[in-house]
């Protein structure tokens, strides 16, 4: 039983709690009896910090089946996306000034591309099909002689839609075009094998997978021509690609997080599928309910549903104490309909009614049942209050 006053969190796509073992290790490391030395220091304490970082890089590399020295630590996926896109496009500008991405990307991808457009790069913005998935033929048609970089995310943060990265990468590689993948929502959750995948740059972040906020990484493939210009300067850290004192405790946490994720990935997925299915079974019969994305092929940690003739902001408030996300970008008091859902062909009204439910390791059946109950009663209440449409 869930107490009414307590919050029920179903927003694991926004952020996750740090695994308690990870938090413990962080504390042990960063306090006075730990290993708090600056890894740039050459003394013995500094070298121990370096070893901790190397170990963590190994853990993350093992999760992704790549080499530890292909990973650059950043402050999160936002910075990784910027470094990959701004840094990648600048590094390769001799190769061409045409870039391709999708309309359903995260803001941390969209905005750097907007900046590049202002700098004279040309960007093709591909629309997905109505299920959110990219039609590979559209990508092929968009590729040009001067295309140098494609950026397409793995799992969409709003809808859970999964793109076929392997297929996309194969098309790019055949044309000597770099592929950047924003994998903030998939690293540690879906299998990713960077030995096998034709991916050149990949962004990730710890806080979506039970690690701390403020630490991410960028994978840079070990292939000729794959490189980025740095965005920050100073100090010689990380092959000059990303200076600044390395936050040892954050990196160690990301490493542990990766190792834990690796060991329990299939259990996690099974759990998410169970929660997802239970929730969907509990609401699918509601009149006017529509899935944004695809129930069968999407990432099971995320379920985004719109509902006809319901106002999204009121829905969200009626759902309290459930903590879920709207389909809207929530940076102002007046909520804009999500551009991601608009790109899937949803009307403004349907996009505005969208709620993203996202599940995580701590999610229990009681939470899901509470959410079903809340969602149904909120819809019922708001429909009751609403007047007939004016004819």
């Amino acid at each position, binding site marked *: 039983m869930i107490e009414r006053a307590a919050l029920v969190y179903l927003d694991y796509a926004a952020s996750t709690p740090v695994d308690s073992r990870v938090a413990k290790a962080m504390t042990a490391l960063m306090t006075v009896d730990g290993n708090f030395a600056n890894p740039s220091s050459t003394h013995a304490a500094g070298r121990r910090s370096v070893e901790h970082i190397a170990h963590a890089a190994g853990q993350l590399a093992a999760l992704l089946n790549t080499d530890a020295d292909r990973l650059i630590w950043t402050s999160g996926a936002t910075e990784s996306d910027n470094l990959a896109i701004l840094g990648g496009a600048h590094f390769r500008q001799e190769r061409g000034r045409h870039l391709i991405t999708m309309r359903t990307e995260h803001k941390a991808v969209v905005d750097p591309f907007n900046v590049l457009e202002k700098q004279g790069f040309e960007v093709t913005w591909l629309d997905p099909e109505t299920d959110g998935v990219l039609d590979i033929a559209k990508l092929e048609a968009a590729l040009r002689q001067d295309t140098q970089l494609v950026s397409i995310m793995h799992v969409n943060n709003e809808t859970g839609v999964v793109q076929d990265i392997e297929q996309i990468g194969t098309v790019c590689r055949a044309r000597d075009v770099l592929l950047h993948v924003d994998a903030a929502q998939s690293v540690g959750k879906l299998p990713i094998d960077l030995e096998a995948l034709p991916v050149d740059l990949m962004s990730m972040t710890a806080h979506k997978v039970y690690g701390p906020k403020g630490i991410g990484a960028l994978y840079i493939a070990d292939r000729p021509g794959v490189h980025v210009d740095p965005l920050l300067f100073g100090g010689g850290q990380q092959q000059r690609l990303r200076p600044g004192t390395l936050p040892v405790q954050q990196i160690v946490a990301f490493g542990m997080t990766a190792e834990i994720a690796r060991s329990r990935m299939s259990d996690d997925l099974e759990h998410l599928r169970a929660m997802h299915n239970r929730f969907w079974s509990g609401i699918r019969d509601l009149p006017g309910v529509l899935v944004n994305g695809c129930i069968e092929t999407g990432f099971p940690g995320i379920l985004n549903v719109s509902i006809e*003739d319901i106002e999204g902001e009121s829905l969200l408030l009626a759902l309290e104490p459930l903590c879920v996300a709207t389909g809207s970008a929530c*940076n102002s008091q007046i909520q804009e309909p999500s551009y991601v859902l608009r790109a899937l062909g949803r009307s403004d009204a349907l996009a505005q009614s969208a709620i993203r439910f996202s599940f995580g390791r701590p999610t229990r059946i009681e939470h899901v049942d509470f959410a079903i109950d809340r969602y149904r009663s909120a819809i019922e209440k*708001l429909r009751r209050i*609403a*007047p*007939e449409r*004016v004819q």
Partner: protein
Amino acid sequence: MSGDPYSERVRQLFEAPRHAGSLGGALSATLEDQGVRIRLAAEIADGEMRTLRFQAWGCPHVIAVAEAFCADYEGKSVSTLLEFSVSDLMQSLSVPVEKTGRILVIEDAVRSLGNIVRDASNPDD
């Protein structure tokens, strides 16, 4: 990043909108604008509003303001409808200014109800 967009009062009114509903056979006005749909209904007796009910499709502030209006104006004289302005309610409920546009739809609906009530009571005009 933002603080709570809803004042305590807005939360209460939204949570339990006691005046939500319709009134069979009463006078009513319906308006749709700014993505807001609102219907106000009044039972009148002796130039007073005995009962007020609203139906609304809109954000929590719209629902809260509609509820607050009904609660405040039940028992008042019908003439007050034509002078109604949302600005006091917006202030007392701390409605963000960005929402002024949609809240004004309520003001329009109230005025419109006022006109309907007036027309109904002066059938000879």
